[in-house]
């Protein structure tokens, strides 16, 4: 984790401050993802807590129920986890192999934080599914997922595209598109019970 300098203070009051500071840093990065602007905060002070929280939330919401043990159900918790982290690592390696000048953890941080719109989409889809199945239900979910998918792509390319030389930008951005497409597909095909 990138550590900011400890401000001088009483040595005895050190323990509650780092947690609040980290939570604030995570929250600030969430805001940067929701309103993507050309700022360097996400890249400079990278951390992996935000991606971990988002990944665990998404995996918990997507996993199939333990009662529903049929072989061809939705993904297990571990499968979602593996897809997200393995996918992010693969995209980062790809970007570095193509000659990008972004560091390994910075790229993981950006990709992980940009799952936030899709996690919000998952929450909305679960709420919408409580209203019962139907074609209108599906249309609403499809619309929400498409919008959030576009948001994720825009947010991540705003941070990642500048790190690549211009003649290889599309090669570095395409795997990001594939990654968020697979996550969106998992969210859209989620059926409860």
């Amino acid at each position: 984790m990138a550590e900011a300098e400890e401000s001088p203070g009483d040595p005895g009051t050190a323990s509650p401050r780092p947690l609040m500071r980290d939570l604030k840093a995570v929250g600030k990065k969430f805001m940067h993802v929701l309103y993507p602007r050309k700022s360097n905060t996400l890249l400079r002070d990278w951390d992996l807590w935000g991606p971990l929280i988002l990944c665990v939330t998404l995996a918990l919401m997507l996993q199939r129920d333990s009662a529903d043990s049929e072989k061809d159900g939705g993904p297990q918790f571990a499968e979602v986890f593996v897809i997200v982290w393995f996918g992010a690592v693969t995209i980062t390696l790809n970007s570095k192999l193509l000659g990008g000048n972004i560091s390994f953890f910075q790229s993981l941080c950006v990709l992980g934080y940009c799952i936030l719109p899709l996690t919000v989409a998952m929450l909305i889809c679960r709420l919408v599914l409580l209203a019962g199945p139907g074609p209108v239900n599906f249309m609403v979910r499809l619309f929400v997922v498409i919008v959030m998918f576009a948001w994720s792509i825009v947010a991540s390319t705003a941070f990642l595209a500048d790190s690549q030389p211009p003649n290889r930008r599309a090669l570095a951005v395409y795997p990001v598109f594939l990654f968020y497409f697979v996550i969106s597909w998992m969210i859209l095909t989620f059926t409860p019970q």
Partner: protein
Amino acid sequence: MAAADELTFHEFEEATNLLAETPDAATTSRSNQPTSQGHVAVAMGSGDSYGAEDEVEEESDKASLLQEKQQQQQQPGFWTFSYYQSFFDVDTSQVLDRIKGSLLPRPGHNFVRHYLRNQPDLYGPFWICATLAFVLAVTGNLTLVLAQRRDPSIHYSPQFHKVTVAGISIYCYAWLVPLALWGFLRWRKGVRERVGPYTFLETVCVYGYSLFVFIPMVVLWLIPVPWLQWLFGALALGLSAAGLVFTLWPVVREDTRLVAAALLSTVVLLHALLAMGCKLYFFQSLPPEHVAPPHQAASLPTNIPLSPTLPRSMAPS
């Protein structure tokens, strides 16, 4: 021969001038193909190099001098990151160009010599396989959704395990089959003198890019008309296998006829098996759609004679 001598002398002078200016430059062969890492690109197209054997020999002499110089400078070990970076040294336009080349195979144009030009990349094979695996799983699931709309008795489920199956089978095919092919070609190397076999990476590249045509084929398989699906499958398989055969032909034609024919037919057969396997495993939901209507049609006539007879039989009792 005087004209040819003048030409070769002139080229030698140019090459040495260029080398003096930029010691790291790669040499170019007659048809302006860029070389890297000390390879010599010899254009062995079918029938376009009749009078050029002498020039080829002169160029290979020059090129071997430059080759040694280059090899001293650029050979990072396989444990360094830059070794692997050399396999991703492609631009967007080059990747698109190679994809177009695999979609439209032409008899004279060897994919390896014409498009790869001694710069095989791993980007294309890796991401084309990943895309194909995910597209297979997604469209297979979509056909189940569409089939359920038509016939509500079919049970829909996300079928997530198919992603794993698709991924493993596509990657195994795209990496193990080229390995076997490369091994076999190297084993038969003694039979051929002039044309060397392809490197392992070039074989992987050829297979990887040839799988690209399956992606639109799989998407088009969403249309639930069986004969159209078989037509698309045959077209895509034809294009893909033609690309492979045209690429392998120059390497294999100097071998005995039996070996050449056996190798090419094995390659085409494996490719066909892959396509058929994809169709049968991921697009399974069609048979229930065809079985259901005959059952409904068969059950109706048996109902109709029963219902008029039942009241009649019930009435007297």
